[in-house]
């Protein structure tokens, strides 16, 4: 059974999300799947128990625009994904720098099957 998602490009994200918000959707959450050399990011929205899903696919190492400026609620989940997958979000309101859940002892992105870069280098920017 397939999930019906609307595939969009990374650049369209902000506009698309804003337009969803305008028609009364609320942000539910964001799921991320490691596809090997890229990530699938699926944004889930809900309006009166009807769901809509947006999907963007980004290459590893790419950054993604944050939607925490549109939905404050996206703040936690974006930080979480940053922890787990090492995806950087542009314009995150409150950035926990990859230590939302994880301590320094965890030296790689646990949810990636293959780490994005060398662990040391990957954590550098944070």
């Amino acid at each position, binding site marked *: 059974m397939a999930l019906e998602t609307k595939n969009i490009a990374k650049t369209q994200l902000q506009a698309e999300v804003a337009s969803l918000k305008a028609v009364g959707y609320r942000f539910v959450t964001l799921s991320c799947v490691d596809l090997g050399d890229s990530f699938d990011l699926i944004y889930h929205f809900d309006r009166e128990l009807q769901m809509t899903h947006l999907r963007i696919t980004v290459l590893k190492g790419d950054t993604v625009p944050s939607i925490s400026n549109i939905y404050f609620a996206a703040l936690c989940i974006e930080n979480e994904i940053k922890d787990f997958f090492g995806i950087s979000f542009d314009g995150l309101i409150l950035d926990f720098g990859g230590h939302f*859940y*994880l*301590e320094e*002892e*965890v*030296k*790689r992105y*646990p949810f990636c*099957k293959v780490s994005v870069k060398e662990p040391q280098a990957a954590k550098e920017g944070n």
Partner: protein
Amino acid sequence: MGFFTKLLETSRVKSPWIVHFDCGSCNGCDIEILACLTPIYDVERFGILNIGNPKHADILIVSGTVNHRNAKVLRNVYDQMPEPRAVIAIGACGTSGGIFREAYNVVGGVDKVIPVDVYVPGCPAKPEAIIDGVVLALGKLKEQRTAKDTDSLAAELHQAREFYANRADRQVVE
């Protein structure tokens, strides 16, 4: 054994104050520990109070798996308890890491970080089992030194710490 020593021992056995630290438990064990305090099990019968402050407590009850972040807290909480003290690890998670042993952020059971006196198995441990565990720990409490022999304690702590420090480089499951 003088009268006062005896009095002291009786008092220790009769008034174990506990502090409960939830160390990454799934709440299953937590609520069972709390259930012990409630009318049906009422551990206050044994003088047990959930005092919530390690500085006042005699027994540290730990539920849940240790992860990298709460390990430090667990350590700190334990450090702040004055002697004599005892540690009880509750549940599969507390004793060994339970079903989450292999998860990447899990260090393992409580004994990876601090010395554990009593292991209470179960998932979650039944309130009766927890009461049994506390009773078992009372024996420990009675015989434990009070401050005098800090050297062995220090060695013990050191060991545990070292062990924990080595865990830092633990491999993450692919």
